[in-house]
């Protein structure tokens, strides 16, 4: 049943894109974080997608891993902060807010498209089921 597999494929994409949206949300929320959960400045996280075989001729997608950006953290001058170094600079997160916005828009568009794919497949299946009735 190829049509049913469309749901698996589009579903896997919805899943992967929502993980991507989650990391974007996490990055945006922590754009101003000087200290992350591990006590070090927050590092921006990015998902890595990988194609997985689903059925004989279809390939779905999954999140292979979540990598941390190696970009240097932003230096902010704030001598009153307890995290400031000798020169008075605080190492902030390395999140690039503009990049995250672009990522968010891309993920949300991809999510919408895959949801549309599911709707179309559902319509086609319903038409097929109704074949020969009336």
């Amino acid at each position, binding site marked *: *049943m*190829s*049509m049913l*597999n*469309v749901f698996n*494929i*589009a579903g*896997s*994409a919805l899943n*992967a*894109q929502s993980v*991507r949206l989650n990391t974007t949300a996490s990055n945006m929320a922590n754009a101003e974080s000087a200290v992350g959960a591990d006590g070090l400045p927050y590092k921006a996280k990015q998902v*890595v*997608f*990988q*194609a997985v075989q*689903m*059925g*004989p*001729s*279809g*390939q*779905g*997608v999954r999140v292979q891993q979540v990598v941390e950006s190696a970009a240097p953290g932003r230096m902010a001058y704030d001598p009153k902060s307890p995290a400031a170094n000798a020169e008075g600079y605080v190492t902030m997160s390395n999140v690039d807010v503009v990049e995250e916005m672009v990522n968010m828009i*891309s993920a949300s568009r*991809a999510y919408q*498209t*895959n949801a549309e*794919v599911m709707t*179309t*497949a559902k*319509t*086609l299946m319903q*038409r*097929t089921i109704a*074949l*020969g009735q009336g």
Partner: protein
Amino acid sequence: MFEELLNGVEEMNVQLDNALRFHQTALNLRAQRQEVIAANIANADTPNFKARDIEFGSALSGALQGRVGRPIALSTTSARHLNASGVATSPQLMYRGEEQSSVDGNTVNMDTERASFAENAVHYEASLTFISGMLKTMQQAVAG
């Protein structure tokens, strides 16, 4: 008497099968193509993913001639060649030509894929309409 009747029924079944075969094959291929395009759309952001597609015309003629689902063997010209056989279960998947290269090696063009997806969906519905039309014709013939 009974055997004659049975033969007659069988013959009618074959005729019904033949009448619907073309659209049934087309419908199956359309469903498979829909799956392939859905995979392309799903992997629009996957690094190194290459977009694929089925060439519908040749796939349909191949399926109608029974090239799909029949055992295929390697042709050998020497007794020392290896023998191998398999069954082609699905039409040949081809890689889509690249229009604009991207840094991550992905060749999915979302516009092309969406257009193909919509086109394929319309063709699928057309095949369904043809089949239901044929069924209606048959019912009318039976009901008189």
